[in-house]
């Protein structure tokens, strides 16, 4: 078995962060955490995760801007970003894809579906 997939989870909501990270770790992923967009791009550049799960409504730097910056940097441009948002209204999906996200999931997350999307964007089954 190959090395565990490294996931960077960017989420400002403490409980959501705890819950999702624990569930991911239980499935054998290595989970890195960031609480805002700025932390996210720094961590991504330093730790080189395999995939980023990005909440879009973030403090300091929002998810769209963070994704845009990640796409512009040579060190992070290849890391796929999966957008997570609780916003059901409007054109969130379009905006996320425009910013350079590889996929889009609406909260509450369907966990099994999310695992499928992770496998799809990384090309690896955990």
């Amino acid at each position, binding site marked *: 078995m190959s090395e565990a997939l490294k996931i960077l989870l960017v989420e400002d909501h403490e409980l959501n962060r705890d819950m999702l990270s624990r569930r991911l770790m239980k499935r054998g992923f290595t989970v890195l955490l960031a609480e805002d967009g700025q932390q996210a791009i720094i961590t991504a550049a330093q730790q080189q995760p395999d995939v980023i799960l990005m909440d879009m409504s973030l403090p300091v730097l929002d998810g769209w801007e963070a994704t845009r910056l990640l796409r512009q940097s040579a060190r992070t441009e290849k890391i796929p970003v999966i957008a997570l948002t609780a916003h059901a209204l*409007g054109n969130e999906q379009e905006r996320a894809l425009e910013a350079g996200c590889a996929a889009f999931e609406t*909260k509450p997350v369907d966990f099994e579906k999310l695992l499928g999307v992770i496998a799809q964007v990384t090309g690896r089954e955990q």
Partner: protein
Amino acid sequence: MLQWRGRPVDEVGYVLIGALALMLGTGAIYLNWQQAQRTSLQASQTRQSVGTIRQLLVMLYRGEAGQRGFLLTEEKGYLVPYEEAAEQLPKILERLNLLAQQQPAVRERVREIGRLARAKMGELQTAVELLKEGDLAAAELLVRSNFGKQTMDQLVGKLTELEKRVFVSEEEFSAELQEQMRRSAALTVICCLALFALFAIENRRVTNRKLAAEKASEVKGAFLASMSHELRTPLNVIIGYAQMQQEEAEEASRAGDLVDLKRIESAAKHLLVLINEVLELSKIEAGRLDVIPTEFVVEELVREVTGLVEPLAKRQENGLTVELGPGAGRMFSDATRIKQGLLNLTSNAAKFTAKGTITLRVSRVWRQNRDWIDFAVTDTGPGIRKDDLARLFEPFSQVDEQRPKQVGRQEGTGLGLAITRRLCRLLGGDVVVETAVGKGSTFTMQLPVEVTPGYFSSKGLEQAGRSLAVAPGVGEEMLMKPVSDEILRAAISRHWAGDPSEVILVVGGESSTVAGAIGRLGWRTVEAAEGLDGLVQFGAERPGLVVADLEMVGMDGLEFVRQLRLRTDGRTVPVVVLSEAGKTNRGIV
């Protein structure tokens, strides 16, 4: 705020002051202009007088010269200029007289000049007569008497005096004229400024109102979006932890915990659906749901829906039949919204029916001079009691007794039918129900094949590549605000005979403005700012026609018309609906 005909009093004040300034300004300009004209006329008349007097003088000198020549030489040829002068003189004098009459200031002087001229001419004439008779000595005496020279000197003196006066008054005139011109120019500038200020004020007022409306709509939208976010975030946490705990309970074989955790998850998920539907409903009610029409093949849409409903139907061992009538063809409407409505109806049918049949029947019909597609969903379920029918399309009105026992409460939110009805109305149609207790129910979505312009927002229209036309067929008629007096008059006349014993009820936030306009058209009005007040006024006044603004506080215009239609006395009253142009418009009963 203090109001007058629907406008704040300070604005009315500005308008009045502006109008007054304009009136005074134009009046002053007119008077000034008239005076300037008089001044220049006077100047030109005086100039004419001077010219005439000079002509007169020349005539007299020529006459005198002729007379002197004749006196010296007795050559008759010298008399030609004299005779000319004698002939011209009365004409010139007459002209001078005429000019003098028009100029009181110089009248006396001109008369004096005339008198002197006649005297001089008389002297010339007498001398010539004496000569002709051969009395040379008498003629010479007369000429030498100096009488003629004195007269001539007097004449020249008078003329110089008059010329001087004319010169002075010309200067005065031109100064006066200049002053008048300056005054006119200043007044014109002031008038233009007043006019400009008026336009600016009016423009700002209109812009402010538009901005306020846009702002309100934006705030509503932002509120809905943040509501959605705030409600979903904690739910996300609850569902996530419940799922996580379930996994752990499963691993540890704690079956009792598993059941409880499943209940938590399922309740949370139900709440999520509920939140989604409430938001959907409020989005429709707030006019924020954009209808985006496209052209599509009805059969394809039906096939898609069938695929989604089949597993639902099978859950309670129901059969699903689809009957697609011939010629269903294409529709120009919002396919997503139609699918949503159809899914609501069919999943309802599947929920309330067990071991029965669910039939989806699609047909194209011609009704009320329009092309319609009817989507009828028939079930063999318990049917709906008559008492419950009235509340059927209200939010949260799910009929408890008819819920099949085996279906858990979390299956339905009680909002599906309310949303479906609103969606159908949004598309210019409606949902109707036929039911028999113990036999089943048929819910039919009746939708126009081509969605009416005006039922959807300008944004939707842009996306569909169509232009906005005047919206027919809503209530009695839907008008886009701002509405002109003429359009208002025409619309009212179309639906009401104008019985002078009846009044028009105007309901809505801008009722006083609209009522003012209707009042100007010569009809009597009763106003109500809110829907509830409108219903009270309707009962008290029995109006011949109702004008309802969709935008109003409290009960909205849509609800007001619905409530009105529920009254026995309000079922047939014609209703003209006003809506903000460019806004998503909602259909009316």
